[in-house]
């Protein structure tokens, strides 16, 4: 199957139905290994003690908050430039997932910050820019809900997504550009990770597990969104048939046409 074939929602649904069970199985397996390494193998950190275990979930949440928004930005380009039928569906389905992971990144960061920094929150560049990311997600979800026509909503959301994408490099480089309480990057560095393998390996396995979870949920949410738009088109056809007014929206042209 060529990539272009996936532009057809029906073909995409068939592929998603085949992939989702495999992804779900891989997610469960990755979590089993990751949680075993986290609680039974990984040592305590020499400075943080056992609170390093919070890092095994905080870092994947932060990574997914940014990864999800980057995926939405790529989808926004697909919506505006190529009018790809599934691009807007992808962005809309990803937003609540990104919001949830960013929220968890903020909460787990706070729960780590209180015993380690002595405070739940500081208005430094890293924390504030991640809070802005969370608010962006909520704003986008609200925008999609405000405009009834999914195609118009998708275009407006795509513009807002691309404007908000400026925040992603700000989050990434905030710890280098400004003097912040948050520690600098220790995994994704040009000169390699500075974390000991006994902690790095569980962290990477947990990151893989959460990424697989995100991909599974994203495919499922995209499937739901395609069905929702199909139902909307069918109801419009039903309404126009009952009033005798012709509609221009074919029921099988699911998302953006």
């Amino acid at each position, binding site marked *: 199957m060529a990539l272009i074939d996936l532009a057809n929602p029906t073909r995409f649904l068939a592929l998603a139905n085949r992939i989702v069970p495999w992804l779900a199985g891989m997610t469960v397996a990755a979590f089993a290994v990751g949680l075993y390494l986290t*609680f*039974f193998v990984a*040592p*305590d950190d020499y400075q943080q*003690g*056992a*609170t390093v*275990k*919070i890092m095994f*979930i*905080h870092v994947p*949440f932060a990574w997914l908050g940014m990864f999800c928004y980057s995926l939405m930005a790529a989808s926004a380009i697909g919506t505006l430039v190529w009018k790809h039928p599934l691009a807007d569906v992808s962005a809309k389905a990803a937003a*609540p*997932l990104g919001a*949830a992971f960013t*929220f*968890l990144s903020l*909460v*787990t960061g706070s*729960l*780590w910050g*209180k*015993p380690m920094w002595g405070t739940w929150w500081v208005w430094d560049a890293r924390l504030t820019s991640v809070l802005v990311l969370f608010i962006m997600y909520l704003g986008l979800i609200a925008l999609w809900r405000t405009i009834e026509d999914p195609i118009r909503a998708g275009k407006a959301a795509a513009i807002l997504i691309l404007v908000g994408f400026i925040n992603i490099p700000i989050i990434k480089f905030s710890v280098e550009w400004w003097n912040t309480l948050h520690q600098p990057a220790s995994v994704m560095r040009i000169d390699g990770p500075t974390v000991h393998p006994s902690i790095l390996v569980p962290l990477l396995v947990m990151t893989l597990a959460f990424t697989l*979870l995100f991909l599974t*949920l994203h495919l*499922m*949410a995209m*499937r*739901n969104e395609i*069905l*929702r738009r*199909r*139902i909307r088109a*069918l*109801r419009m*056809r*039903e309404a126009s048939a009952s009033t005798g007014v012709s509609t221009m929206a*074919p*029921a*099988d042209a699911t998302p953006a046409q």
Partner: protein
Amino acid sequence: MTALGPHSAYILASYAISLAVVLGVIVWVLADQRRQKRALSDLEARGITRRSRGKAAREQAAADQTAGERTA
């Protein structure tokens, strides 16, 4: 399992909240899937189908009718 030390409440709270939110998202996605599938099957049960599917159904009915006339 290693002991969680003096900050165990923070560690357990982090995992508990994360588990609650992740499970909440999974349940929400599954419930939404169920809702959409039910709505779609309700529409199809009332004869409101997609044009491609409706066309296929009409062609099948016409073929069945032709076959019936030949055997009669």
